[in-house]
């Protein structure tokens, strides 16, 4: 059977790389004695796949993943057994049985929502940050420099990948943003590029932390999507 579920990574677990996460989930599945299905071939590996990769240092409320199992298991049991053997900072939720003919998570990944906590080098009022955001959202182009694989810097317009951005809190020293952007197997909105554009616009620099709140899919019934009948 096929199970799709979401994994959260909070606190210190944010510092795991994508590979670390894959290893950790696989080992937890083995500890939970889940009847995993293995790939054929030279070096068989369990059929476990995350929808996308999460940058090292980012927390996430829901990293969706897909597991193939031999035999049947009630999704609630899957969740409970796995949660008993996951390390601190990680837990699964939203486990559901998925039809075999449902497409892959990666292939249908469309967007993601993030909370960003930005700590600029100097303080800004809510009005200042708010008006900067409005200006950025009104512009047709948001140009950033992107490093290519060969190390060269090329200009990139990130505006098309930015869907929504709003200020949710501001205490002077830092502010929080709710950002929705494109996320697909091929790429999407780079949140650090967006923060840099915003800080640049404000005439400052600074650091930020990020938590992925949700991932959205196109054409996978039962999974969160941005279309009609929005996922809650």
């Amino acid at each position, binding site marked *: 059977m096929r199970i799709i579920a979401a994994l959260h990574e909070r606190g210190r677990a944010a510092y795991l790389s994508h590979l*670390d996460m894959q290893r950790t989930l696989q080992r937890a599945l083995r500890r939970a004695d889940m009847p995993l299905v293995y790939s054929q071939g030279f070096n068989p590996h369990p059929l476990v796949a995350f929808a996308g990769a999460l940058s090292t240092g980012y927390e996430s409320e829901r990293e969706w993943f897909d597991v193939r199992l031999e035999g049947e298991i009630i999704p609630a049991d899957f969740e409970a057994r796995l949660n008993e053997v996951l*390390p601190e900072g990680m837990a699964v939720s939203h486990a559901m049985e998925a039809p075999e003919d449902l497409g892959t998570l990666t292939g249908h990944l469309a967007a993601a929502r993030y909370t960003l906590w930005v700590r600029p080098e100097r303080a800004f009022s809510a009005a200042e940050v708010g008006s900067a955001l409005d200006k950025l959202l009104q512009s047709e182009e948001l140009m950033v420099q992107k490093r290519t694989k060969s190390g060269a810097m090329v200009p990139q317009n990130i505006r098309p990948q930015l869907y929504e951005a709003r200020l949710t809190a501001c205490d002077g020293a830092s502010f929080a943003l709710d950002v929705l952007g494109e996320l697909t197997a091929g790429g999407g909105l780079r949140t650090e590029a967006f923060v840099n554009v915003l800080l640049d616009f404000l005439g400052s620099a600074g650091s930020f932390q990020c938590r992925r709140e949700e991932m959205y899919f196109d054409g996978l019934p039962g999974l969160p999507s941005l279309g009609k009948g929005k996922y809650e």
Partner: protein
Amino acid sequence: MNDQVLDRLLSRVEKPARYIGGEYNMQVKAEADLRFALCFPDVYEIGMSHLGSRILYHVLNGMEGVRCERCFAPWTDMEQALKEAGEELFTLETRAPLKSFDIVGFSLLYEMCYSNILTMLELGHIPFLSRDRGLEYPLLVAGGPCAVNPEPIAPFFDAVVIGDGEEAEPELVNAYRASRAAGETKRQLLERLAAIPGVYVPSFYEAEYDEHGFKAIRRLTDKAPEKVTRRVLENLDKAPFVGRQLVPHMQIVHDRVALEVMRGCTRGCRFCQAGYIYRPVRERSERTLLAQAEELVRCTGYDEISLLSLSTGDYSHLHELLPEVMDRMEKKRVSVALPSLRIDSLLKDELDKMQSVRKAGLTFAPEAGTQRMRDVINKNVTEEDLLRACSDAFESGWTGVKLYFMIGLPTETDEDVLGIAELAKKVSRLFYSMPKEKRGKGLRLTVSVSTFVPKPHTAFEWCAQDEPEEIRRKQRLLVGAMKGVRGGELHYHPSFLSVLEAAFSRGDRRLAEVLLRAHGKGCRFDSWSEHFKPVAWQEAFSECGLTVAEYAHRQRALTEPLPWGHVDVVVTEAYLKKEYEKAMAAQTTKDCRQGCNGCFGRAYADHRCFA
């Protein structure tokens, strides 16, 4: 350290997962009257691969009221981040500063990590020298294989555990508690520790030197023993194992379940320190091992298990154990690794079985290129053994073979060096002479050649190490001879690191000052080529009026006093001398399993190898 500070530090380093802890099976006891920081002077991925540290973590946390936490050497990016932020080195479990612990214990696995001990103490704001630390600082202890010559690091540590730590460490912890409860002075505490068998208190001894170098070591109090005798755990089968093995998030060097099959080795290779200092051989029963294998796999989720020992092929019940382990593990899709098989103990059936789970490279260690040289080092393996093992491996479909050798061995001639290439040539010919349908496509024959480092408490403890120029000449000789070995690839290393290792493994107390100076010159992570500073080390030696050469390249007389002479590792000096003389005559000594060779002498005749 709070979350915000940690986040700031982690955002500045390349591999933050080294510093976060929180791994599955990590233990954090809420109530503890004694806190022990178990330190490893190398990075996380290396330290977490060390079985001894895992055993101690389990043993100490198993003691009532004791909380044992871990701390590893921070990589240079984290060291810099800590210094710039004005933060102290912290443990992974509770992020508490090292200085706040009752006892700080270091594992000594490799001499070239000594500089990292100083880095960790500096970052922990703990004074380097034992004499500069009162009871307001943690008690600083050490243990591990390098402790059999504790002299180069003696002035830093309050106490050093020599030998097996499973029993000695808890005794040390309890002595500390008793001393603290009685409100004793540090001196009184050290006296208690010196009374524990296997515990060495360096400050109770003084070394003397004359114009020739080390002269003698003198005991300063009768509270300390004349000779410190290595601690030997009698019953490995009943001993604690690793319990619930920690499962790191990031990939570590030995990323699998480690199952210790036996301790000690009966082969008696004369260069091998482990072969001498882990005697007698102690085995775990097949039943215990099967139960531990199942338990470890269940509580970790690992898909690989390694049957560890110095020579797993020699385990008495291997033929019963191996098929059973492989069978049970295959059902769980766990592959079984046998990391230290000897060429002569290899069996084709077992190779075929291993092949079915996963195909990794095979490694053999003939150690020397000619039979004469192998007889000198008592590596009782013949060319036929190697060729037969390779032939079996090739027929089973393996195409990657790695051969380990040493150069610079005592009595070595150019013929012995060239013999390495000859042997490689024969292996290569063997592969390509096999019918194509019976073997794999292309051979990958890696010939790895390291430089011999004479070690204390071995038959070669008196021997000179070849000088770097001579090693380079022999390496060049080999490079030439290896040309034309089809599928062959030669790996060798610049030799100054081996020279330093030779100096520190047989060093005396004067080297502690050299270490302090090298630390001051920025030496750390010396075994990582990008950080190794040979010039700084040379300067550190000369500032102390010493040379590396007098430690590494000087042949010692058999009658000469040795800086580690007050450490009794149970194998007698008389036995080592006899072995040395047999080596010089290229005479072999039989495997202890074929009959006792009498290495313990009369005093420890009751230490039985096969009880």
